[in-house]
C-alpha cells in the first residue's frame, strides 16, 4: 500500500488546479468553481485514503516518495508522512474543501482568488510532507506569500495595513529561522562534528548529536522564527489584524493551518533535531504559553468585532499547543498535535459561521446584533458548536486534546499549567457572552431579511461540526496515529532534564 504515490498526488492536486484555473477565462464562473471543487475534493479523498491506509502498527514515515533535486547540495524533494504530519495533511484538505464551499458565491475575481488559495494550500501540503529541511522551509514561504495578495485584494477593514503587517512579521520570522537552517547545514557538513556531507535530509540530520551550545542557539532561533507563525506571545500581533482583514475562506486557512505550520515546524525541526535545546528553553515556552492562553483570553473578552474575538481566541488556544510542546512528554505532545488538529477545525467552523453572518449582514460589530437565533437558528447552532468546542466541552475533540495536554503539562509545570488551564473558564466567559449578545434576545426586525444557512452554505458547517463531534466521541480514530508519530520524538528526550542555565 505504501507504494502508491499518494503524497505527490495530494501535493500536486492544488498546484494542478491552480494551473488549470490560469488557463480558464475569468468569465466562466461555473468552470472555475468546478475546478476548485474537483482539485480540493481530490486532495481530501486522497488524504483520507492516506489516513486509512497508514499502517499504525508500523508507525514512522510512510508513503515515502523521493525526488532528487539539487543533489550536490543534498536538497531533495523527499515526501513522506508520519503520525505527526498525517493528521495535519488531512486537516489542510478538510479546511480547503470547506473553504471552497464558503467561497462558492464569490463574484469578484474568483479565478485569481482560487489560484492564490490553491497555491497557498499546495505550500502547506508541502510543509507537512517534506522530509527535507530546506524544501520544508521553502514551502512555508510558498504558503505565506499568496496570503499577502489574498488579504490586500479580497480583504476588509484596514486590509492593506493588515496584509503588510502579516507579511512583515512572517518574513522576519522566516529570516530568523533561515539563519538557524543555514547553521545546521554548515554544522552537518563539518566532518568532525557532523556528517561531513552536504545534506538537508531531516532523518540524517537527526542522527547528529549537536553539541549543547549549538542546540541552545539553534533552538532559540527556531523558537523565535516559528514562534511568529504559531504565534507565540509577544510575536502575536499580526494575527488579530490578519485574521480579521482576510476573506472568510482565508481566515479559515490562516487560523486553521497556517498557524499550525509554526507548531509543526517547531516540533519536527526544533524538538526533533535539538532535544537538549528544547529541554533548555522549555520553561520559557511554558511561561509564554500561559501568557498566550490567559492574557489573550482576557483580550478576547473585550473585543467588539466578531472576527477579533475569534482571532484572539485562536492565539489563546495556541497557548495549549505551546505548553504541550514545552512539557516534552507523550501525553502533552500528543495533546499538542491533537489540539492543532482540533483547533484548526474549530477555528475554521468559527470563521465560516462569522463569514456567513458578515456576508449577509455586512457588519461584524457585536453591538449591532441581538436575537439572531430567531432568523438564523442553524447559524446559531453552528456558532454554539464551535463555541462549545472552543471552551473544551467533552464530546468535542478539542476537549480530548486539551485534557491530554493538561495531563502531560501538570506533571512538569504544575503551577504554570493551572494558570493556563484557567483559560478554559475565561474562554467560556467570552464565548457565551458573544453568543448571547449576537443570538439571544428579542427578535430584531432589522435582520428579518437575513436568511438562515442552507444549501452549499451548510456543507462546511456540517462537515466541520461532524469532525469535531465524531473525533470527540471516539478519539482513537486519530489519536493512535498521532501517538505513533510523537513517541519517537519524545523517547529521545525522556531522560533529559528540563530547564537549566547557561
Amino acid at each position, binding site marked *: 500500500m505504501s507504494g502508491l504515490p499518494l503524497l505527490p498526488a495530494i501535493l500536486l492536486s492544488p498546484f494542478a488546479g491552480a494551473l488549470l484555473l490560469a488557463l480558464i477565462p475569468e468569465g466562466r464562473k461555473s468552470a472555475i468553481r468546478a475546478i476548485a471543487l474537483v482539485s480540493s475534493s481530490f486532495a481530501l479523498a486522497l488524504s483520507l485514503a492516506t489516513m486509512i491506509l497508514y499502517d499504525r502498527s508500523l508507525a514512522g514515515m510512510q508513503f515515502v516518495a523521493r525526488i532528487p533535486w539539487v543533489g550536490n547540495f543534498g536538497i531533495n524533494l523527499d515526501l513522506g508522512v508520519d503520525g505527526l504530519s498525517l493528521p495535519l495533511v488531512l486537516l489542510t484538505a478538510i479546511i480547503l474543501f470547506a473553504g471552497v464551499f464558503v467561497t462558492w458565491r464569490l463574484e469578484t475575481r474568483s479565478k485569481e482568488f482560487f489560484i492564490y488559495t490553491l497555491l497557498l494550500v499546495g505550500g502547506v501540503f508541502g510543509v507537512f510532507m517534506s522530509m527535507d529541511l530546506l524544501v520544508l522551509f521553502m514551502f512555508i514561504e510558498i504558503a505565506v506569500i499568496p496570503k499577502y495578495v489574498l488579504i490586500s485584494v479580497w480583504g476588509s477593514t484596514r486590509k492593506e495595513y493588515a496584509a503588510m503587517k502579516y507579511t*512583515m512579521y512572517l518574513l522576519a520570522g522566516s529570516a530568523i529561522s533561515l539563519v538557524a537552517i543555514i547553521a545546521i547545514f554548515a554544522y552537518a557538513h563539518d566532518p568532525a562534528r557532523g556528517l561531513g556531507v552536504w545534506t538537508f535530509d531531516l532523518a540524517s540530520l537527526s542522527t547528529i548529536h549537536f553539541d549543547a551550545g549549538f542546540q541552545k542557539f539553534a533552538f532559540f532561533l527556531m523558537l523565535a522564527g516559528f514562534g511568529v507563525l504559531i504565534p507565540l506571545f*509577544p510575536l502575536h*500581533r499580526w494575527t*488579530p489584524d490578519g485574521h480579521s482583514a482576510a476573506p472568510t475562506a482565508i481566515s479559515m486557512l490562516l487560523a486553521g493551518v497556517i498557524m499550525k505550520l509554526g507548531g509543526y515546524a517547531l516540533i519536527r525541526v526544533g524538538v526533533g533535531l535539538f532535544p537538549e535545546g528544547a529541554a533548555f528553553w522549555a520553561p520559557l515556552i511554558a511561561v509564554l504559553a500561559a501568557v498566550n492562553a490567559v*492574557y*489573550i483570553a*482576557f*483580550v*478576547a*473578552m*473585550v*473585543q467588539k468585532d466578531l472576527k477579533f474575538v475569534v482571532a484572539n481566541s485562536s492565539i489563546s488556544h495556541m497557548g495549549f499547543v505551546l505548553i504541550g510542546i514545552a512539557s516534552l*512528554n*507523550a*501525553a502533552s505532545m*500528543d495533546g499538542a498535535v491533537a489540539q492543532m488538529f482540533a483547533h484548526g477545525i474549530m477555528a475554521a467552523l468559527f470563521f465560516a459561521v462569522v463569514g456567513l453572518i458578515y456576508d449577509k449582514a455586512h457588519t461584524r460589530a457585536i453591538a449591532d446584533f441581538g*436575537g439572531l*437565533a*430567531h432568523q438564523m437558528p442553524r447559524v446559531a447552532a453552528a456558532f454554539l458548536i464551535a463555541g*462549545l468546542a472552543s*471552551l473544551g*466541552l*467533552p*464530546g468535542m475533540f478539542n*476537549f*480530548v486534546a486539551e*485534557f*491530554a495536554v*493538561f*495531563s*502531560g503539562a*501538570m*506533571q*512538569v509545570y504544575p503551577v504554570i499549567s*493551572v494558570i493556563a*488551564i*484557567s483559560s*478554559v*473558564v475565561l474562554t*467560556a*466567559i467570552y464565548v*457565551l*457572552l458573544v453568543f*448571547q449578545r449576537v*443570538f*439571544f*434576545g*428579542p*427578535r430584531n426586525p432589522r435582520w428579518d431579511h437575513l436568511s438562515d444557512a442552507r444549501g452549499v452554505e451548510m456543507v462546511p458547517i456540517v462537515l466541520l461540526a461532524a469532525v469535531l463531534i465524531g473525533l470527540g466521541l*471516539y*478519539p*482513537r480514530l486519530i*489519536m*493512535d496515529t498521532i*501517538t505513533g508519530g510523537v*513517541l519517537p520524538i*519524545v*523517547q529521545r528526550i*525522556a*531522560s533529559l532534564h528540563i530547564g537549566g542555565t547557561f
Partner: protein
Amino acid sequence: MVNAAIALVLAPLAAFILIAFMTRRTEALSAMVGIVAAAASLVLSIGLLVGVLADPAGAHESIKWLSIPAIGHFRGLEISMGVLVDPLSATMCVIVSLVAFLVMIYSLGYMKGDPGFSRYYAYLSLFAFSMLGLVVADNYFQTFSFWELVGLCSYLLIGFWFEKKSAADASRKAFITNRWADFGFMVGVLLLFQLFGSFDFTELSTVIPLAKGGAMLPLIAALIFIGPLGKSAQFPFHVWLPDAMEGPTPVSALIHAATMVAAGVYLIARGFILFASVPAVMEGMAYIGGFTALFAASIALVQKDIKRILAYSTLSQLGYMFMALGVGSMSAGMFHLTTHAFFKALLFLGAGSVIHATGEQDIFKMGGLGKKMRITAWAFTIGALALSGIFPLAGFWSKDEILLASLRSGHVGLYVLGLGVAFMTAFYMFRLIFTAFGGASTEGLRAHESGPAMAIPLLVLAALSVVAGLIGSPWFERAFGFSFGSFIFFGEGEKSRLDLTTAAISSLVAVGGIGLAWIMYGKKLIKAERVAAAFGPAYRLLDHKFYIDEIYGWIFARVMLAGGRAFDWIDHKVIDGLFDGLGAATRATGRKLRLTQSGRLQGYALVIFGAVAIAALALSTDLLGGLLK
C-alpha cells in the same frame, strides 16, 4: 445487566437525534419520541434495580477509549469508558428516569403551544442521556465528561426562552459559575491520575486506602470537591441556582431540583472512599453544607417569587445532604437525595401548575387558589408537609437520618443548626401555602385546575412523597429484611432506626414553624410588614441575598473586564508600538541613508578616496611599525 444499563443511557440519546434531525416539524411526534425513550429508560432502570436487589455485587465493564503510553518517569494517559452497575447507580437511574418520564408527560400540558416545543423535548432527551450517562459512569473522566454535558443541557434549558434577557443572563451565569467549579474538579482529576495512574472508581477504591499520608491526597479531594460545590450550588457557588428559575418550570423540577443539582451529592457518594480518607475535607463538607442549609433557608424566608422560594429551599436541602455526607453518612445523604427528588419535583410541578393557570409568580398576588385548584393545592400541601418533615411523609425519615447522623458523629452544633433549618423550612413553606392557596381570592386572578397531563404526574409524585420515606423505616426493614441504609452504604450497612427523641424534637420544631406561619400569614395575627420593619437591616440583607450577586458582579465588571481592557491596551499600544516602532526606525534609517546616494560625483569620489586611504593605512600597519600603535 451491563447491556440494560447501556441501553437505558442510549435510549434518550436516540430520541434526541431523532427529534433534532427528523421529527422537529411534527411536534406531537417529537414529544412521543421523547416520552417513549424516557419510558424505556424507566423500565430498564427498574429492571436494573430489581437485578441489583437480587445481586448487590452488580456489574462492571469498560472499553479502552484513549491510550497514550508512559515514557520515562512521565505518566501517559489511559482512559476508558464503562458502565458500573451497583445499588447506588441503579437507584439513581430509577430516580432520574422516573422524574424525567413524569416531567415529560407533564410538559405535554405545560409547554403546549410553545413555538419551541420540539426543541424542548430534544433538550430534555439530551439531558436524560447525559444525566444517566453520569450515573452509570465507572470512572472520574467519564463522570466529568457527562458532568459537563448536563451543564450544557442546563444552560440550554435555562435559556430556553432566549428572547428574554433575564433568561439569557441566567443561563450564562449558570454555565460560568459551574465552569469555575469544574476548573477545580478537572485539576483534581488530573492530579488524581498523576498520583494513582487511574480514573477508575473500582480500582481507586483499592489503592486509595493504601496511599500514604502527604499533601497530595487532601489537595486532590479538596479540588474534586469543588465540582460538587458548583453543581449542587453550595456556598459560595450557589448564585446560579435561584436565577436558573428563568427556565420553564418542569425543567426546574427535573434539573434544578430533583436530578442534576443532586449530581454533586451523587459524585461524593460515588467517590466516597476518596473524601472519607481526608477528614479535613469531610469536616469542610459538613460545615459548608450546614452553612448553606441555614443561609439559603434564611433567604427563602423573605422571597416573594414562588419558584425562588423553592429554589432557595433546594439549596438548603442540598446543604442538608452535604452535611450528611460530611458527617460520614453516605446512606443518609443518598436517602435524602431520593426523597427530596420526589417531593421537590412535586412542589415545582405544583408551582408550575399555578403559574400555568395564573401567569403569576408572586405569591402575594395570588390567594384563594386552594378553592380553584383543588388537586394542585392538595398535592402541593403534601409536598410541603413532606419537605417540612411531618410524620410519616418522606422528608421526615430522611431528615431525621441526617440529624441523627450528625448527633452520633458528635456534631452537636450541626444537629442544632439542622433543627433550626427544619423550623425555617416549615415556616417558609407554609408562609407560601397560606398566602397563595389560603385566604380570599385575589381579584382579577384567573385560575383553573390543570388538565390530566399535568395532574397525573402530580398525583404520582404526591403518592411517592408520602410513601418513599418508608423504605428507610424500621418497619420496612422488619417486613422485607433490608432497608435503604443496608442497601446503599459506605463501610458497614446502616440499620434503620426511629430515634424517638430526635423524632419528637424535629416534629415539634416543624409543627412550630407551620404554626408561626399560620399565625403570621394564615390568621394574620402578627403583621409581616411590622416584623420586617422591626428587623430592618436584617430584612434588607436577606432581601438582597447577602449582596453576594452584587459582589460577584462587581468583580466581573471591575476586575475581569477591566483587566481585559488593560491587556487590550497593552496589545495595541505597547506591543504594536514596539514593533511598529521597529518598522518606523527602519524606514527612518532608510530615509537618512538615502541622502548619501546624492548623485554628485565629487561626493562619491571623496568617499572612494577616503576608503582607499583607510584601507592603505590599514594594510601598511606592519610597514609603518609602531606609528599607529
